[in-house]
């Protein structure tokens, strides 16, 4: 083995991996972010990452071409790290700090080997060290962002599904309690699940309860009208309930035309009307 270290591969061949890891962990502790994962986990992650990087560099990978498949093992480790950080709620700065903390130990190793390094290669060597860490940090932040976006997307979907249950109130009577703002995607989802349930149960009456809808403006009214029209096309009837006094006032003041929609103040009123329409009569046996 030649004494002069010309490239990153030569440096990584000679360095003491445990020493780097120790310094890396020290550096991480100094930057002192509280929400970092526990020390043994971080050390294990760092060790995996270091092994992957060493392997990639040894097989001739260039830091400047980080997107090549030769780096895929390293990238996968970084992806795991950033997605676990994202799930724990760490910030992007904290996540990239984990990788960036490798820079100082790496540089100090280079410095330790200074006497063996051909001076003409020193600049290039330091540049590729720096580039390596930067590329890794960049990739970490990118994947961190992706996993955060995936989390947000999943939560949005769950929220949509959670907020649109279709309830069977009686034989032939369905109810949908709407909660939250009615936008077009919500309306679409409610419409689809309600119409599907109408077909499944053969219900001829659907009650849409808007007690949980904070405001009704022209757009919301239009969405309601659409839903009612679709229900009517299927051959069922629809009652809108839970119109609060303030909302009734707003509807009138905005001049919204709810003609053709039966509206009731409370779900109880709507249910009693629905039962009457379906053909049930009730008598109270106690005075």
């Amino acid at each position, binding site marked *: 083995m030649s004494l002069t270290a010309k490239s990153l591969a030569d440096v990584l061949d000679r360095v003491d991996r445990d020493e780097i890891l120790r310094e890396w962990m020290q550096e991480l502790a100094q930057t002192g972010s509280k929400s970092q994962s526990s020390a043994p986990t971080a050390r294990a992650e760092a060790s995996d990452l270091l092994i992957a990087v060493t392997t990639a560099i040894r097989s001739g990978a260039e830091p400047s071409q980080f997107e090549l498949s030769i780096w895929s093992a390293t990238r996968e480790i970084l992806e795991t790290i950033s997605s676990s950080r994202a799930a724990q709620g760490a910030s992007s700065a904290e996540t990239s700090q984990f990788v960036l903390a490798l820079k100082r130990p790496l540089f100090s190793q280079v410095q330790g080997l200074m006497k063996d390094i051909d001076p003409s290669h020193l600049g290039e060597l330091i540049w590729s060290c720096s580039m390596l860490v930067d590329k890794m940090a960049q990739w970490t932040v990118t994947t961190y962002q992706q996993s955060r976006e995936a989390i947000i997307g999943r939560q949005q979907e769950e929220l949509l599904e959670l907020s649109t249950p279709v309830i069977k109130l009686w034989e032939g009577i369905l109810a949908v309690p709407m909660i939250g703002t009615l936008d077009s995607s919500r309306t679409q989802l409610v419409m689809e699940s309600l119409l599907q349930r109408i077909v499944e149960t053969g219900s001829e009456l659907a009650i849409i309860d808007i007690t949980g809808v904070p405001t009704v403006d022209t757009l919301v009214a239009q969405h309601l009208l659409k839903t009612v029209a*679709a229900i009517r*096309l299927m*051959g069922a009837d629809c009652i809108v309930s839970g119109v609060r006094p303030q909302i009734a006032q707003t509807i009138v003041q905005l001049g919204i035309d709810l003609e053709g929609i039966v509206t009731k103040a409370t779900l109880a009123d709507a249910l009693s009307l629905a039962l009457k329409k379906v053909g049930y009569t009730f008598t109270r046996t106690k005075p």
Partner: protein
Amino acid sequence: MDRIPILRMGKCLLVTIQVDMEDQTALALQDDLSSKIAATGASGVLIDISALEIVDSFIGRMLASISAIARVLGAATVVVGMQPAVAITLVELGLALEGVRTALNVERGMAILAVSSEDARGEPGA
């Protein structure tokens, strides 16, 4: 070109659309149905579209005009079994089919027709 069969059941005509309607098919149905109503003196028409999965604005408008024609000829029309996707499409197209009566299935549609033909008989001259 496929022709959609029109079946006679007592005083009612039964139309079951089993294929995806093309414009020509719909036009032919409109012709056939109006002459059949006139020939049989039917009091009710039931159109079952439960197998219809794709509609466009033309088919939507044909459904409306067929039922309007039937009304002019003295027959009540009920459209039954519309699929949720079809209903949503028609609403998004702005075709709420205001004048068309609808029912969930053939059984309920027949019940509606029975009631409306009784009403028609109850009122002399109607």
